[in-house]
């Protein structure tokens, strides 16, 4: 693990999945249009399955707008869904976006939003006005300050994880070891 430290730490502004007091917190800075992040999505799901209540997962947006023209609106749409439909809707949207990375035009985003139960007109209006841009940029800036060095970048209990996230068994073993160490303290 590196010296790069999550800044700010996980707080009430974050999208959090899993047990609130879990000994291990995994934060992902991701981009909904990034292919590596798409491949990381099932890895995270597998980690959640294996770690169960010992893992809390947080997603922060880090859209690479120069590389990915749809990333910003995808991130804003996810925030809009959270604002209008709550955290469960956000996570449903998060999964839909990573499972449909090949279709991220605005009309696609609105259809995914609608399928989470959120009024798509509200999301359309947020995209048009840029109402969620500040919220997304807040995540991006925190990533800049934390040492994000690509997408996805993971932080484990506040430290950047420089291990190979594509090796899910090794990643899970690292997290299990941390959970045990935290429990023993």
């Amino acid at each position, binding site marked *: 693990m590196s010296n790069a430290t999550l800044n700010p730490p996980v707080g009430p502004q974050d999208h959090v999945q899993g047990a609130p007091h879990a000994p291990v917190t995994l934060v992902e800075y991701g981009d909904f249009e990034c292919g590596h992040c798409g491949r990381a999505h099932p890895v995270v799901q597998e980690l959640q399955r294996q770690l169960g209540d010992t893992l809390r997962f947080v997603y922060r947006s880090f859209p690479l707008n120069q590389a990915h023209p749809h990333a910003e609106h995808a991130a804003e749409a996810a925030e809009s869904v959270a604002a209008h439909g709550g955290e469960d809707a956000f996570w449903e949207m998060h999964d839909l976006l990573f499972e449909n990375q090949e279709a991220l035009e605005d009309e696609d985003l609105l259809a995914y939003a609608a399928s989470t139960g959120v009024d798509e007109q509200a999301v359309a209006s947020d995209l048009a006005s840029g109402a969620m841009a500040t919220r997304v940029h807040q995540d991006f800036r925190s990533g800049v300050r934390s*040492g994000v060095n*690509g997408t996805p970048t993971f932080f484990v209990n506040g430290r950047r994880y420089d291990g190979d996230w594509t090796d899910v068994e090794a990643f899970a073993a690292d997290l299990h070891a941390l959970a045990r160490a935290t429990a023993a303290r």
Partner: protein
Amino acid sequence: MTSSERSTSTPLVSAGQIAPPFELRATPDQTVSLADFRGRPVVLVFYPADWSPVCGDQIGIYNEMAAEFAEYGAQVLGISVDGAWCHAAFRDARHIHFPLLADFEPKGDVSRRYGAYREKDGFSERALVVIDAAGVVRWSYLSPVGINPGADGIFAALDALTSEQRSQHADAAAGAATHE
């Protein structure tokens, strides 16, 4: 990184040293020198090669942070041993907005003078150098070559520069006030 992993003969420049001057080709018909940016902070990004195979590589990530660097008036300059035509193709393909300088002839000369060259590999280290408006090195960092360092250290150094400037301005203002 342990010293045995280093292949450069000289250590990376460090805080307090005068940044070695240089002039390098940015495009096939244009050169850039360090002196061009006197008066504003400069961030030198030494990196091994263009065309690394991941999206959001080190250069790409700093490119995405253009607005953040602009807040400090800081100029980012990438430096590798790739030639100017290679840099031009890479910048076009990845929409890179800051200059990429070709440390190409004599190969690695500037990287070597900064202590950021890997002799046995024949390319630059992954190293970061923040230089202040007066041309003095204020912060430097040598990253393990396989790990992108991110930008947290750069921005912490730029923050330190900015707060120092503010307190100097405040001192100057206070000095002026006592004269009145």
